[in-house]
């Protein structure tokens, strides 16, 4: 039963993703990509949970590698996205300058 249930979650999430992302304006497509890079660092939590004390050495090594790589994604992705989004500013209402 479990695989079917996971597949349900997967398919619904894909549809939700299409709905959400198609509303993102093209101005924000670069932050969208770096932001989704951060989200795709989600294997981090799986990698953390896989690092059990009883692990054989190779598993521990691979798990640590997975944690490190996913952390690069999470930290790098969110930070660089924030750096970019900080730069998007609306036009300030300036006092009228001189005419022609």
């Amino acid at each position: 039963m479990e695989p079917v249930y996971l597949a349900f979650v997967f398919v619904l999430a894909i549809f939700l993703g299409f709905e959400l992302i198609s509303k993102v304006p093209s101005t924000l497509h670069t932050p969208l990509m770096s932001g989704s890079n951060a989200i795709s660092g989600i294997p981090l939590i799986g990698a953390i949970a896989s690092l059990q004390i009883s692990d054989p050495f190779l598993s521990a090594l691979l798990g640590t590698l997975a944690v490190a790589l996913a952390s690069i994604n999470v930290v790098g992705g969110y930070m660089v996205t924030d750096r970019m989004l900080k730069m998007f500013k609306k036009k300030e209402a300036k006092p009228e300058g001189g005419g022609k």
Partner: protein
Amino acid sequence: MNLFINYVYLISAVLFIFGLKMLSSPATARKGNLLSSLGMLIAVVVALMSNGLDYKWIILGILIGSAVGAYLAAKVEMTQMPEMVALLNGCGGLSSLTLAWAEYHQQPDTSLFIAIVTFLSILIGGVTFTGSMVAYAKLAGKITQKAIVFKNQHVVNGAVLVAIVLAGIIFCLNPGSSFGYVLFIMIALVALGIGVTSTIPIGGADMPVVISLLNSYSGIAACAAGFVISNKLLIVAGALVGASGIILTQIMCKAMNRSLANVLFSGFGSGAAAKSSGQGAQGEIRPASAEDVYYILESADSVVFVPGYGLAVAQAQHVVRELGELLEKNDTEVSYAIHPVAGRMPGHMNVLLAEANVPYDQLIEMDDINPRMDSVDVCVVIGANDVVNPAALNDESSPIYGMPIIETHRARTVIVLKRSMNPGFAGIENALFFNNNTRMYFGDAKDSVQALVAQFKNN
């Protein structure tokens, strides 16, 4: 405890979804990103609370990864964002691969379903990793940007793909044996190879499509890893990223009027394709000096800048913004029309202009500017070429025929800033340069615009 962790994961998923939803407007986007990162933070915190974890490894991994990530995020230039995204795609793919491997190593004798998703994690993760590394090397100029094609490339790639699927089937039927482990390692190695061979035949101009696609792969790889460890949050988050990458890929392909298959397999930009249209447009060009251009701009009511990647290469975005502000003081309406494939990744030009303090409400999409192009006084094309080439509309023999363009030739006057008459990235002559209403303003983009700014300040 397990139930509690799962509920918190649900909250994380909701935060990711809200974060993406808030990306639908630049005004809320930053808050959305913070919300999304909060979701990630609480997911990590509860993951750390489960029993029997080996913390020394976890802390070591998190420290190294966070330091590298923070360093990259703080140091990267905005012009290098495509390289950064390519690197992050690669890290995502490899982390899914290593996670699936670690799981398999601990428990090689698994069910058929787990074996299948393990195989998929390794395959997609491996392709994403090396594919992204090749894309990174191309974008960073470490290897040639040209498409590298060799004879029978598709036959070889196809054969390798069939072989890996067959190996995968045998592996899935018997994952627990030592032969299964050997197959597993071979599949991983071949997947890494496919990443390279499938990305090298794609030219530099098509990199926006490739990194969008790899973005999607990295999400799908996370999904597959989620199936391996039965974790719903990995599946949801991976699916969101996968969908995002696919949508961006579609947008990029549409903006170039090419199918995804054409981008991936045609070897566009290897030199062979461009030569066939050698005759190109001919005619007289009308050069203009800084003073001429100044008088045109000074008397204009509306000016639309059309920036291309050449603008960023010349580091001219700040002077362009300065010129824009001077024009506004002169009661001229200023906006920036941005083609979806301008720059080296989706939305790249927008970020570069935002960095130069151009307000985002002045950035206009192609589909919004084209209908009112006839009423625009002056279009200033800076460092863009193919995206304003009218051949895409009326020359059926042109390799870019059918590609949507910013129709600058319909504006009353077009000023093209260009270093020389060399054709652009795709090697195609541009009829726009020979039009009656076009003035060519030759020189380095930054120096040229600076000269205009000086003219405005002196007069």
